[in-house]
């Protein structure tokens, strides 16, 4: 598509590095348009995304069920490298997708679970209920979302879980400064 022929690189060498520049290979896709141009690609994309929203509940149910399945394997076989990875990935996907799907509190609870998996020094020593409560909360938030009065409760629930998880993580990481720093660092994503 918008390709620049090779051989147009300019390389300037310095004592410990090279600076490589080339004419912008994508410049030709920038079009000058009049100020009166009414095209709105972002608005168009937002409408298209809204058009998908009818599927979000079923997608979220699939994601939550995947998380529960991963948790069931952990309960059955304990934490192995593979089990841990699958539980983390399932929670991590919910953390990233849930707000887009209209379930921000499920995303917050999933983030709290990700932090436990990532920062607990030994997952075998994490109270089993702490993980189970996160999984159950995510399932409940997804299941009950259609009830109008559940949004506030879901938010409160995910915040309480995060509070308990953080308290646990601060305690078990008190001698691990690099983890403490990561746990206490603010997220680059605005809170729910």
């Amino acid at each position: 598509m918008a390709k620049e022929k090779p051989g147009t690189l300019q390389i300037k060498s310095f004592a410990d590095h090279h600076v490589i520049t080339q004419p912008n290979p994508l410049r030709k896709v920038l079009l000058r348009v009049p100020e009166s141009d009414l095209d709105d690609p972002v608005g168009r994309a937002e409408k298209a995304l809204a058009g998908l929203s009818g599927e979000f509940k079923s997608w979220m149910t699939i994601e939550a069920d995947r998380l529960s399945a991963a948790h069931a394997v952990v309960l059955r076989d304990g934490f192995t490298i593979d089990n841990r990875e699958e539980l983390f990935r399932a929670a991590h996907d919910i953390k990233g997708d849930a707000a887009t799907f209209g379930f921000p509190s499920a995303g917050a609870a999933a983030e709290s679970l990700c932090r436990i998996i990532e920062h607990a020094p030994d997952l075998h020593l994490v109270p089993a209920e702490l993980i189970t409560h996160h999984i159950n909360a995510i399932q409940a938030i997804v299941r009950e979302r259609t009830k109008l009065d559940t949004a506030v409760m879901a938010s409160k629930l995910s915040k309480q879980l995060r509070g308990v998880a953080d308290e646990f993580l601060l305690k078990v990481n008190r001698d691990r400064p690099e983890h403490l720093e990561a746990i206490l660092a603010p997220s680059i994503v605005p809170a729910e």
Partner: protein
Amino acid sequence: MYRIDFNKLRFLICDDNPHMRRILRTLLHSFGAREVYEAEDGATALEMYSHYVPDIVITDWAMPIFDGLELAQMIRQPESKGNPYAPIIMLTGHSEKRRVTVARDAGVTEFLAKPISAKGLYQRILNVVASPRPFIKTKTYFGPDRRRNTNNAYIGPERRVGGEMEVMQQPSLLDKARSNI
């Protein structure tokens, strides 16, 4: 005022989650892109990268076996036969600052934390189209210039040695194009 002609851009998206791939595809098609290729893991993405030669790569981070970080590192091989300069946008659920630094050091061009939004994605694409950064090659790094700001007072261990070229002017197209959002 500037606008991106999306139908001249070829995208490669890499995410193991089919729902996120669907959302990305929907957004890109709505922007006007016609050529959007999809991979569900890093290894397939690398193969498709060589085959389709995309203009822009959008990749997730956490994927089984071969993740987005490794994909970025594989693409940023200065001696490779493929194009090591393509912009890479990392779209990820990771939201910690240290992750941004790790992604940047792997040669990622832009970082976009989930939840995804049409505006956030458009702006990252606009950044890479309108304001490409020079590439830097050192003993330990090959990728887009990691400096977004000039800090002449910096005296840390990774200060580059070199003189005038340490201050690099960026094209002003981005500001002009931003006025279109």
